[in-house]
């Protein structure tokens, strides 16, 4: 059978059967020891684990027995971030969790067709879409017992109930035209940049399109940091705010279910398709992915195994996946999903290499409102403006306009929940909120603290963020201005974010043209 994953608010108000069973399933998983691969803690640790942090947050104690080192080495530390494996790995992870919870629910007498719901926070047609579903904030279940879906380390921006802002739920990534950026991370692509190894210290640690927003931003927007506490201290963070604790919050799974659904939606759009690169299909080169299953066995998989959600073992679809009179529209229809399709053919990636044309003069420290001045090389700026003018002239045969990107390199800090909005070329004294056309993008510091640790997996290089500023730059051209410098402004998402500090090693300006 094909399970149907539904939007949470379409299931009925309050404690509808699906959410009540989810709560009971979560409770059952939470009763299992850390050594149980189908337990709540083990599943959360597959996303991220840190003994000091978990003990401080009360998830485990100093004497909680850990699974054996060999098991930890095999299952933990698999999570894929800043990588083109981000979407397929999380899909497999989500599937494993769903079927483990379903088995627990069936064991408690629940429905065999239970499927994980998703939270569609971006749909303005849904009333209160941006508000945390109330069942996650209720103190008790209908029978008066404690609600396992309620978590005290979930702060949002200090309001009760937690409500996400419009800016945070924006779906700009859906307009990304390519799944991955080819051999460069500019742009990184909807699915994320190429990384051939499981954790390659030489890879650029650049957030992918969908990963950046809404994924990273929503993590920080839900988790937040404790009101009144220092947002730069990890002890203040909400569970969802850091990759090493995010899997402990039951809302994590509904958030990722939505992210997975957005992948299916992106594929339905004209011209979009997954990469045909065999390294993605069968990678990473040094280590495949493996998940525990409810029946005690393991499931080893690569990206190629999770492309079609309706195919076994995944066997699910989303309630908004179109069904025509001919039957269910299968994504990637018309593309042979076999090894033969993954040839050394040209990838659907931008053909040119990005070229640096300007940058900030040095490191930028941000605390509250931040500013940076970017100098643009005369020759590079000139070429961009000429290409934009030529494209705008609509002359037959004119090449498409250059695209222009900002790359925030080496974002470092310790406040993972932090969210900032980046504006470019704002007039002096302008109120940012009145200039949405100058918003380059929203940056979340999800995962930045681990990436800033010199002994950590990213060797202290921090994280990179690439923002498309083509429209902003072409606006400059239309006003008759030339491109010799750009002003960047960092605007905190809230008063709490304004207290966070972080640094950016360099902001580079890159052009991507036909030459």
């Amino acid at each position, binding site marked *: 059978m094909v399970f149907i994953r539904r939007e949470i608010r379409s299931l009925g108000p309050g404690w509808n059967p699906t959410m009540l069973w989810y709560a009971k399933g979560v409770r059952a998983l939470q009763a299992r020891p850390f050594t149980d691969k189908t337990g709540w803690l083990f599943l959360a640790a597959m996303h*991220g*684990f*840190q*003994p*000091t*942090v978990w003990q401080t947050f009360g998830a485990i104690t100093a004497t909680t027995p850990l699974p054996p*080192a060999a098991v*930890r*080495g095999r299952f*933990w*530390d698999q999570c894929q971030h800043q990588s083109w494996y981000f979407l397929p790995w999380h899909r497999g992870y989500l599937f494993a969790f769903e079927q483990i919870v379903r088995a627990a629910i069936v064991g408690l007498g629940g429905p065999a067709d239970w499927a994980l719901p998703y939270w569609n926070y971006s749909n303005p047609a849904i009333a209160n879409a941006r508000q945390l579903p109330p069942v996650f904030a209720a103190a008790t279940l209908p029978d008066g017992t404690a609600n396992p879906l309620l978590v005290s380390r979930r702060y949002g921006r200090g309001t009760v109930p937690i409500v996400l802002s419009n800016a945070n739920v924006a779906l700009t990534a859906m307009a990304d035209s390519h799944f991955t950026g080819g051999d*460069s991370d500019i742009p990184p692509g909807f699915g994320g940049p190429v990384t051939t*190894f499981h*954790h*390659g*210290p*030489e890879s650029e640690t650049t957030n992918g399109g969908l990963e950046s927003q809404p994924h990273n931003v929503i993590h920080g927007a839900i988790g937040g940091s404790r009101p009144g506490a*220092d947002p*730069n*201290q*990890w002890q203040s963070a909400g569970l969802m705010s850091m990759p*090493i604790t995010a899997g402990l919050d039951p809302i994590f799974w509904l958030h990722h279910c939505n992210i997975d659904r957005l992948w299916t939606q992106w594929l339905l759009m004209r011209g979009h398709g997954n990469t045909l690169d065999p390294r993605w299909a069968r990678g990473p080169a040094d280590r495949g992915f493996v998940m525990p299953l409810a029946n005690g066995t393991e499931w080893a998989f690569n990206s190629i195994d999770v492309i079609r959600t309706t195919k076994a073992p995944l066997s699910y679809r989303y309630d908004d996946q179109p069904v025509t009179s001919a039957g269910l529209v299968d994504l990637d229809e018309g593309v042979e999903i076999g090894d033969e399709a993954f040839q050394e053919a040209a990838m659907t990636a931008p053909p040119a*290499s*990005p*070229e*640096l*044309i*300007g*940058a900030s*003069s*040095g*490191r930028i420290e941000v605390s509250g409102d931040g500013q940076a001045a970017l*100098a643009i*090389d005369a*020759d*590079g700026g000139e070429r961009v403006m000429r290409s934009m003018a030529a494209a705008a002239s609509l002359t037959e045969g004119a090449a498409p306009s250059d695209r222009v990107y900002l790359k925030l390199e*080496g974002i470092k800090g*310790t*406040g993972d929940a932090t969210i900032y909005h980046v504006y470019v070329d704002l007039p002096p004294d302008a109120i940012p909120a009145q200039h949405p056309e100058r918003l380059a993008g929203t940056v979340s510091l999800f995962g930045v*603290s*681990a990436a*800033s*640790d*010199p*002994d*950590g*997996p*990213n*060797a*202290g*290089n921090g994280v990179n963020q690439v923002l498309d500023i083509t429209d902003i730059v072409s606006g400059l051209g239309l006003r008759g201005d030339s491109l010799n410098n750009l002003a960047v402004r960092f605007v905190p998402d809230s008063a709490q974010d304004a207290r966070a*500090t972080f640094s950016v*090693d*360099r902001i*580079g300006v890159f052009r991507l043209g036909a030459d």
Partner: protein
Amino acid sequence: MALVLSLAGWLALPLAMHGLMLPAICTSAWSAAQGLDSAFTVNAPGQLVAAWTAMLLAMLPPMVAVPIMRLWDNALRRNRRLLVAAFVLGYGGVWLAAGLLALALSGMVAQTASPAVIGAALTALWHCSPARQRVLNACHRRPLIRVFGREAVADALRHGLRSGSLCVAACLPLMLLSARAGAAHLAAMALAGLWLAVERQLPPRPPRWLVPRRPAPRWESAPYALSA
């Protein structure tokens, strides 16, 4: 490109080392200075430099390929060659200086009772030490390189000097040890070079003493030390 250079180095190495007499063979070396002195007396300086350069060419290009490509991709089009040249100058300069250090050390170790054993023991100790792990972690660091003017060239040069110093610290002891492996030194150096290239790709780890039969520490298992 890096592999081509490396291959050229490996081919040149036996030729360059032919007839070289290193201080271990010369029993009259009593100190570092005398070691250097005797090395230069017994061998033509040109040949020593040629041998050292051939070894650098054989073993180093795969190590610097990525930093150089990154420097290239992140520089203004008109500055690329200049910045890469500055990097190579800094990097190569450190290694040439390391060559002199190596000769001096060879002289000092040669006069001890069992130079091979002492050399191997010291190298093993260094390879298990947290200090070396810090060096390896630092190898993965991508420093800030500014874009315009003299600052860009200075940053690239500094990057080369820093990378070279880290490389020397991480790799020189094992390279020296393998170069003294008698008749099999070329094979030993090839193996050492291969191992060092593989090690360069491993992810960073918390700096701890590596103890036999104890698994290497992982970031996920170590106490969380990062603070604001």
